C-alpha cells in the first residue's frame, strides 16, 4: 500500500460527495492508503489566484505543509483544478528558496507547520494509468464494462499548462483511454475531449460557457457514447447539472450520463450504489447500469 495524503477539495466534500465515497472505496483496490487531512482548506480554484494571488500561494503552502506534517511525500488529488493550483504553488515554493522561506515563516507565525518542499501533488488518474496502480486496476476490474462505449473527457487543468502538469502529451493524451480499455470498455475518440467544459465562467458568462459545454456532449453523443467519464468534479458538475440548460437553449435532450473516474473504475471493480451514489447525478445513469445488468 502506498500511503498518500488525500486532498478531496471543496466539491467532493459537499456537492460531489459521490466522488469522495467512490474514491475512498476504490483506493485500497488500487494500492492506495488515504490519509485524510482535516485541517486543510480550499485551494482557491484559480479564483483566489486571480483575486488575491499572494493569499492563494499561502493557502496552498498550508495544505502542502499539513500533508508533509502527516508524514506523506505525496498529496493525492481528485480534481483538475486542485491539481493545477497545488502543483503551481508547489513548483514555485520548491524552486525559489527566498519565496519558500517567506511563506514558510508566515505559516509558522500563525501556527502552521513550516513547508520544506518535500511533497509531490498527483491526481488519481495518474496513479491508476501506469505502474503498480494500473496493474492492480486490471486485477480489480473483474466485473468489467462489457464493451460499453465510453467517451473520455479530460478537461483542461490536468493537461495544460503541460509544463506544470506534464504527465502526458496535452494534445494526444492516452491515460483515460487506457483505463477505459483496462476496465473492459471501448474508448470513443472525438475532438473536444481535450477542450474546456466552460465551468469556470458558467456563472459569470453562462452563454460563453454553454457554447463550450455543448461540444463534448454533442460530439460524444454523435460518436455513439453510452457515457462520458471525467477526472474532474467541476467538469462533472457542468456536464451533468448544466445539461438541462443545453436542452433549454438548443431543444436537444442529450441524456448523456456523466461518470467520475472513480465511479467508472468502481463499477468495473464491483462497488455498490452505497459507494457509487449514482442517485446524486442529475442526468440518470440508469441506461448505463441496465446495459451492464444484461
Amino acid at each position, binding site marked *: 500500500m502506498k500511503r498518500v495524503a488525500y486532498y478531496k477539495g471543496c466539491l467532493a466534500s459537499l456537492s460531489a*460527495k459521490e466522488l469522495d465515497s467512490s474514491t475512498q472505496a476504490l483506493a485500497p483496490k488500487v494500492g492506495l492508503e488515504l490519509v485524510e487531512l482535516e485541517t486543510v482548506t480550499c485551494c482557491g480554484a484559480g479564483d483566489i489566484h486571480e483575486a*488575491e494571488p499572494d493569499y492563494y500561494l*499561502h493557502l496552498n503552502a498550508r495544505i502542502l505543509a499539513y500533508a508533509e506534517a502527516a508524514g506523506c511525500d505525496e498529496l493525492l488529488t481528485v480534481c483538475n483544478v486542485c491539481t493545477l493550483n497545488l502543483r503551481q504553488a508547489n513548483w514555485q515554493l520548491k524552486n525559489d528558496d527566498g519565496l519558500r522561506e517567506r511563506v514558510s515563516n508566515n505559516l509558522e507565525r500563525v501556527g502552521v507547520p513550516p513547508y520544506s518542499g518535500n511533497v509531490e501533488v498527483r491526481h488519481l488518474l495518474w496513479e491508476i494509468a501506469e505502474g503498480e496502480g494500473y496493474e492492480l486496476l486490471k486485477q480489480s476490474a473483474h466485473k468489467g464494462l462489457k464493451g460499453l462505449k465510453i467517451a473520455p473527457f479530460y478537461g483542461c487543468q490536468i493537461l495544460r*499548462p503541460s509544463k506544470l502538469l506534464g504527465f502526458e502529451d496535452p494534445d494526444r493524451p492516452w491515460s483515460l483511454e487506457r483505463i477505459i480499455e483496462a476496465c473492459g470498455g471501448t474508448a470513443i475518440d472525438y475532438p473536444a475531449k481535450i477542450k474546456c467544459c466552460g465551468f469556470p465562467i458558467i*456563472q459569470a458568462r453562462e*452563454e460563453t460557457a454553454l457554447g463550450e459545454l455543448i461540444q463534448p456532449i454533442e460530439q460524444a453523443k454523435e460518436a455513439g457514447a453510452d457515457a462520458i467519464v471525467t477526472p474532474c468534479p467541476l467538469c462533472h458538475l457542468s456536464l451533468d447539472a448544466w445539461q438541462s440548460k443545453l436542452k433549454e437553449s438548443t431543444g436537444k435532450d442529450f441524456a448523456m450520463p456523466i461518470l467520475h473516474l472513480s465511479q467508472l473504475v468502481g463499477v468495473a471493480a464491483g462497488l455498490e450504489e452505497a459507494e457509487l451514489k449514482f442517485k446524486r447525478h442529475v442526468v440518470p445513469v440508469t441506461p448505463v447500469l441496465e446495459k451492464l445488468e444484461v
Partner: protein
Amino acid sequence: MHTDLAPAPGSTTIEIALKIWRYDAVTGDKELKRYEVEAPDWVTLLDVLDIIKDKHDGTLAYRKSCRMMICGSCGMRMDGAAVLACKTRMYDIAKSGHVPVIAPMGNLPVRKDLVVDMEPFWNKIRRMKPWLDPGYEEPPEKEWRVSQEKMNVIHKEALCIMCGCCVSECNSMESDPEFFGPAALAKGMRFVGDARDQANVSRLEDYNDEHGIWDCTRCYFCNERCPKGVDPRDAIAKLGAESIKEGIEHDMGAKHANWFVTSARTTGWLRETELVPKTQGIVEAIRQTKFALNLAKHGKVPSPVPPHVAERVNESRLLYSLVKEQGRDGALGIVQGEHALGRIEFTEQAGLKANDPEVQPVVEPPPAEG
C-alpha cells in the same frame, strides 16, 4: 528564395511528407493535399513550405518574414495545434513516419490556404490602446529611469510577437468571437503593469468589458501554444488581480473570485450554495430557482447551515491578515512566482519530453530581481 538549401557539411537529407489544407475563399474549394519532398535534415516546417512552393507547387499561400521566431508571421496549425512554422523542426516527425496535417490557425477567417485574415486580431489589439500613456503632454527635462524590479512585472508580456498562436485555440473565443482574447489582454497587461503608464485604472475599467478579462474560461490553451513564453492566461489573471486591487469589482467574474477569498477566510472551504447569489445577485438567483431546485433534488445544493468548516480555520484567517499587511497585492502576487516558473523549461520533470518533436527549448527570461 531557398531553392538551394544545401545540406551543411556532415548533414544528410531526409524524406518529408506533409498534408496541407488548400483553400480558396473565392471559389470555396477545399482540399487536403499531400506533398513529399527531400530536404536537409535540419529543416523547419517553414523551410519545407518554401521547398514545396519553389519546387513543387507555386500556388501555395502562407505568410513568412524573419524566419527566426521574431516577426510572428508564420503561425499555423500542425495536427490541430498552433505553431510557428519557423520554430518547428521536422527531423523527428519525419523519422517517426508521421505525416502531419498543416492547416491555417483557428478563430480567424481563412483567406487562402494557410493565410488567415488578421484584421479581427489587430482590431482587438488596437482596442487595448497599446501605447504608453505617461499622463503628461510635455516630456520631462531629464530621462526617467525605471528599475529592473518594476520592469519584471511585464517582462513576459513584453515578449509577445503577436503571432496569434494563442488566439488560434482559445476556447472562449470559439464560443464568443467578441472575446478580447489572450493576445490583446496580454498586451493590455503590458501597459497596465508598466510603471510609466498613468492610465492603468481607466484601462482596467475598459478591460472589465463584457467580452474582457472575466470572459476567459481558463482553458490554458494560450499558455500551451505561445511560442515565446508569454503565458497570456497568467497575464489575464494579473489583470483580474489588478482590477480587484483597484476596487473594480462590479463584474460577476470579480464577485465570483472574491467569494472564494471570503469563503477561505471564514470557513476555509468554498461556501458553494451562497456562490450564486454572491456572484449573480439575489434577483438572478431567484430567477434560477427552478434550475436550483432540480439540482437540490440530487444533493447538489448543500445546505449552508451548519457550514462546512475546516479545522483550525483561524489559521487561514490570520494568514489573510498577514498577507494583506505584507502588501504583495495585485499582479505582484503572481509575478513573484515567475522566477521559479521560468526554470521549468530546463527540467525533465515538468513535461519536457526529450523525444517529443513538438517541444523545443525556450529561451529563459532573465531571473526576476526583488
